[in-house]
């Protein structure tokens, strides 16, 4: 039995642009365009990259109780999230692990959530089962999502008549691009300034063509999306974070809102909160770190990490080549005692121990636009 593969509203446009399409999370998605991963990556850092991320799940939670319903499931302050603001968060489980990560934003009509494609069926079933009071989950299957990322992203919007200097990182608003109504947030998954634009499937192709007509814009596939987020130190669900990693081990405890921490106004109350909050600050046995290989060989996901005495101390969860730095980079989990920046550790690659230095996981400084 073969499962049918889904398309997005932009599939035809990707093929028209020469994309190499691959199956990803049940969708046919562009992994690269004719320029290739390296050039696409560097273009995003220099100008503006366009990404089809319509495979991600989008839903609107409506009702007075929407914030309270969502707060049962994630360690984020949603009730005090103002209209026009966005936060990063994650669904936790009773063991303190992470079921998925997501973006949450508040709109006049309700709370929007954007979740990972591979998790969306489960996430939406879980959300639906946990609605309470008048909170209602509305899965928005008729929406596409286009990201525009890079230092020129704001200029592209300016050329389309949108001066958005008053809109900061992690803010959101409705905008009209040449007659097409969109929900736009100033955020993304590359470490660059940029926007994620949610638009109806009916208008997605038209909007994408408007954006791609700008000379600063080029389409970017999943290959460069991965190397961009890795350089930016961002976690990929299912790789760097999963059901067995706690947010504190994953070094994303910063996302847990003060209101939900010990002593906060709505402390705890999310799955695994006892475990997660007890680990703050840093009462953990392992930690996600950045890894800088000394040599030229890329260190891939799954590679075992050893100390000088060849004791196993960790595992690489993402790794590859950094086009911006022209050298390999990786991230992974390491025993806490070996996780200090500057520690020399070893990756076992094809039987050889290759030296790596523990570092920050942010390899290329983020370039977010903060007000």
């Amino acid at each position, binding site marked *: 039995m073969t499962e049918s593969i889904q398309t997005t509203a932009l599939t035809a446009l990707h093929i028209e642009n020469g994309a190499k399409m691959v199956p990803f999370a049940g969708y046919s998605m562009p992994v*690269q365009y004719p320029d*290739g991963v390296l050039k696409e990556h560097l273009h995003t850092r220099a100008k503006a990259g366009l990404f089809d991320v319509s495979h991600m799940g989008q839903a609107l939670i409506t009702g007075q109780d929407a914030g309270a319903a969502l707060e049962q499931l994630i360690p984020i302050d949603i009730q005090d999230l103002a209209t026009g603001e966005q936060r990063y968060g994650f669904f936790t489980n009773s063991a303190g692990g992470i079921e998925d990560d997501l973006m949450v934003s508040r709109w006049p009509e309700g709370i929007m959530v954007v979740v990972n494609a591979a998790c969306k069926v489960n996430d939406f079933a879980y959300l639906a089962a946990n609605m309470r009071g008048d909170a209602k989950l509305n899965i928005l299957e008729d929406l596409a999502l286009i990201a525009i990322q890079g230092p020129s992203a704001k200029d592209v919007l300016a050329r389309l008549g949108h001066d958005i200097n008053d809109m900061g990182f992690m803010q959101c608003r409705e905008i009209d691009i040449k007659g097409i109504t969109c929900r736009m947030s100033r955020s993304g998954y590359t470490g660059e300034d940029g926007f994620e634009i949610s638009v109806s499937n009916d208008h997605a192709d038209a909007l994408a063509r408007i954006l791609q007509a700008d000379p600063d814009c080029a389409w970017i596939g999943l*290959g460069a999306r991965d190397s961009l987020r890795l350089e930016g130190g961002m976690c990929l669900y299912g790789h760097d974070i999963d059901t067995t990693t706690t947010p504190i081990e994953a070094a994303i405890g910063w996302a847990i809102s003060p209101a939900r921490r010990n002593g906060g106004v709505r402390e705890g109350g999310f799955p695994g909160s006892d475990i997660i909050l007890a680990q703050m600050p840093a009462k953990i046995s392992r930690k996600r770190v950045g890894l800088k290989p000394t040599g030229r*060989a890329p260190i891939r996901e799954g590679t075992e990490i050893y100390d000088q005495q060849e004791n196993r101390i960790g595992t690489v969860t993402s790794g*590859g080549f950094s*086009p911006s730095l022209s050298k390999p980079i990786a991230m992974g989990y390491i025993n806490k005692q070996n996780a200090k920046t500057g520690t020399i550790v070893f990756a076992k690659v094809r039987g050889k121990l290759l030296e790596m230095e523990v570092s920050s996981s942010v390899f290329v400084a983020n370039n977010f636009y903060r007000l």
Partner: protein
Amino acid sequence: MSETRYTEDHEWAELDGEVLTIGITDYAQGQLGDIVYIELPEVGRTLDQGEETVVVESVKAAGDVKSPVTGEVIEINDVLNDEPELVNQDPENEGWIFKMKMMEPEQYAQMQDKDSYTKFVDSLS
């Protein structure tokens, strides 16, 4: 006179006397994408036919180059240590990977010629 033959693993091998120069085909480099690292074999190493000899890492994935014949590595293309992208730019000339001295010439004779390899590649798309 030299002649080039091919494997279904997308390696090419050019024979000159008893020395084979080996690399990956244009199709292979296109499939791998931007190459960022090549782990070359040691000179003097003896290889069996089909033995994994070289690791080619691209931004997307790692691929193996298998030895197309049994023999001994006699030279490697050191330039690839600093310029692995040569394999993308000129896979069947400047981007050669290693040379070996063949021990069983009939293995070479059994490899595909250019026409046969071209048909094989066409059948993949």
